[in-house]
């Protein structure tokens, strides 16, 4: 029976809550809360992708597009039109959901390679639009002056405040996702992964469920994009390129795509690899990512989250 233990979730929540204090005390990790803001933003996306790819078996190589849609909707509506950032965030999610439906309805009829290529092409097209619609997006130079976030006069203007804001969203999304996985809908998604024919025979509307998950992952990615834009106050298209979609794939492959914890683990590890541990490699970090991806696929197909199962298997033998 698929049960996601409550204890680890509670411990994780406690860890996130107390971490900024720990970071203040231990020398050398003072900037870690800043990194965890990014880890949190990535978690939002990897959770959606994990549900889509790991649980439902549908690949998407275009998630960066939804990330970008969230960021650009927030950026354009706040700077050019002066709308309330929270409203923009919601509009961003709605736009991402509509785009996901428009792309998902035809694309999710495709399987395997075709779906991968279709989502890849979609991602690149959106990336080209970000670059070319200079009037709206500022083109390759990007957009600056995106305001920070505040609520009733309370500004999320420090790293710690923003940290708690982001992790509030991540935690809410995490619980929501876990609840979905352990419910009728979650079983339907896993059923689709195992056998579409049998899912149909059980009365599961397969295409509807696929689209629903795709939309959910798009909404989470859009939220992540808005949070990113309001944190950095500046965006440009390169953040949302093809490589970022692949990086998300690396995150869930590394963490383990058949386990929602894999999404969290992968997002954390890749955040620390990119911002902290791979500085030495500079731009050649892509080689390291490629090697990680290959090693995981060859030696640990269930990712790091699959290790406990392997250990259990050994112990039983």
């Amino acid at each position: 029976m698929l049960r996601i233990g409550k204890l680890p979730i509670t411990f994780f929540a406690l860890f996130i809550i107390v971490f900024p204090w720990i970071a203040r005390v231990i020398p050398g990790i003072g900037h870690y809360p800043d990194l965890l803001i990014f880890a949190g933003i990535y978690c939002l996306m990897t959770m959606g992708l994990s549900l889509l790819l790991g649980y439902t078996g549908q690949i998407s190589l275009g998630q960066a597009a939804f990330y970008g849609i969230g960021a650009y909707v927030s950026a354009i509506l706040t700077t050019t039109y002066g709308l309330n950032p929270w409203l923009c965030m919601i509009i961003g999610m709605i736009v991402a959901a509509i785009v996901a439906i428009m792309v998902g309805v035809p694309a999710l009829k495709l399987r395997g390679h075709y779906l991968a290529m279709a989502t890849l092409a979609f991602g690149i097209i959106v990336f080209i639009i970000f670059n070319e619609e200079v009037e709206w997006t500022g083109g390759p130079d990007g957009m600056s002056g995106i305001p920070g976030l505040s609520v009733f006069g309370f500004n999320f203007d420090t790293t710690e405040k923003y940290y708690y804001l982001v992790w509030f969203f991540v935690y809410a999304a995490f619980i929501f996702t876990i609840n979905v996985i352990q419910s009728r809908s979650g079983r339907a998604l896993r059923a689709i992964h195992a056998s579409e024919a049998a899912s149909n025979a059980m009365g599961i509307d397969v295409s509807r469920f696929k689209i629903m998950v795709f939309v959910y992952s798009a909404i989470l990615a859009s939220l992540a994009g808005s949070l990113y834009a309001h944190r950095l106050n500046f965006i440009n298209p390169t953040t949302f390129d093809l490589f970022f979609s692949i990086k998300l794939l690396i995150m869930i492959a590394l963490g383990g795509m058949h386990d929602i914890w894999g999404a969290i683990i992968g997002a954390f590890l890749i955040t620390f690899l990119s911002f902290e541990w791979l500085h030495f490699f500079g731009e050649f970090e892509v080689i390291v990512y490629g090697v990680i991806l290959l090693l995981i696929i060859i030696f640990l197909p269930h990712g790091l989250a699959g290790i406990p199962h392997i250990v259990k298997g050994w112990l039983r033998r």
Partner: protein
Amino acid sequence: MNEKRTENILEVEEVIMAFGGLVALINLDFQVQHHTIKAIIGPNGAGKTTLFNVITGSFSPTEGTVRFNGKSIENLKAHEIAKLGISRTFQTIELFTNMTVLENVMVGCHTRIKSSFIASGLRLPQVKRKEEQMRSKAMDILEFVGIADKYNESADSLPLGERKILEIGRALATEPELVCLDEPASGLNETETQAAADLIRRIKDKGVTVWLVEHDMKVVMDIADDIMVLNYGEKSAEGPPLEIQNNPKVSEAYLGGGEENNA
């Protein structure tokens, strides 16, 4: 609802199924009566699986109608047909191998006990209640089919006989009025076959109509109320088991030359 309540649960009328130039079913006509077990037999390539797929919605017939309780279903999708009350098993067992035995049956409850994606995500109080409801219903079904003790095992780990039983249980979880079984006894040993036949009879006793395709003539003669013989996409005989057994056309088409069928 003013659907005509006929004595037939399923009516197939002049169904033609063609794939390109290949005609798999030719002007097929037959009925299935409520609360009976109807078996379809015939040599390999007779069109049994095609017929199965037409009725359960994997294919739409090229021509003709399929009526379930008086309602045309030939253009409905497989999941819509399942919702109406026709459930099925697969010849090449299609269990959800990534789930436990119990979860497989719980997926079967999908259409009858509903909670939306968003309600599930928010874990609204009714979701928890429904989840319990599904669980106990699934357990009941596992008791009924006789594999309740294995509820927490991976569906993948069961032996073939129990996997077939589980598939039947999963099909029953959709609360069908008509359950279609695709070769429920193929690949089973003597005892397992006996258990399957016994289960099929008990399903009928519950008031569920059974329609099955089967190679094992002993099982068919034993449990079926009515048999249809299919040959080259056409009906070559139809009637109760004794009549079919004594029909010379049947032994010629199937019983005589059909011993090599165990693909």
